[in-house]
């Protein structure tokens, strides 16, 4: 199990290659990669991600611990970037490995839902016209109720 917060670029392909490699007991590996989407006007210059360093890893480790209590996981990985990102950049990724696919899928979805609304990150969109903070979405908060 590993949690990393970094400003450096994220290489999901390389992370997947290294994740749970050499394990002969885990039949299922799921990854989720979050990518910076351009805005509807197509003029997003960058996304700036702020976080709460003293809390971030603690909060995500608690989510991973909860996921391993709920599902039978062989390994889990969460990487989240902060700082400035461009459209098309990878913001974050989650990887889960389990004997069976249902555990790997559900744990990855659980971690994503909690990361969206309970990990201390905030996103600011910068365009030619200025900067604005991304508002939390009701549907992201609602997604937590299924767990």
């Amino acid at each position: 199990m590993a949690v990393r917060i970094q400003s450096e670029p994220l290489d999901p392909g390389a992370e997947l290659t290294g994740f749970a490699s050499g394990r002969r007991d885990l039949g299922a590996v799921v990854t989720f990669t979050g990518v910076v989407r351009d805005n509807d006007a197509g003029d997003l210059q960058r996304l700036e991600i702020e976080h709460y360093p003293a809390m971030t890893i603690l909060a995500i480790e608690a989510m991973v611990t909860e996921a391993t209590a709920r599902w039978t996981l062989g390994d889990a990985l969460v990487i989240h970037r902060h700082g400035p990102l461009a459209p098309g950049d990878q913001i974050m990724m989650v990887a889960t490995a389990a004997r069976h696919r249902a555990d790997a899928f559900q744990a990855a979805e659980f971690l994503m839902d909690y990361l969206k609304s309970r990990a201390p990150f905030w996103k600011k969109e910068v365009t030619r016209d200025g900067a604005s903070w991304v508002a939390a979405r009701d549907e992201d908060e609602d997604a937590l109720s299924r767990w």
Partner: protein
Amino acid sequence: MKVDLVYFAWVRERIGLPRETVETDAATIAELISELRAREDRYDLALSDLGAIRAAADQQLVEFDHPLPGVREVALFPPMTGG
């Protein structure tokens, strides 16, 4: 007692600084927020809508009625947008 306060995102921008230490006798985080709002307009502007604010006490998410005594660091920020 002394409490470290840290602010993030537009709460930080409206208050105009990322962290400070305050002297307070507030019993809860809600009382602390009331004291802050009474200090200056920029605090009032940042913290007037509690529905738009979240709080952490010593890096744990808490409700506003969380007791303040014993807490070393209080964080105030908008709803999180990770992922």
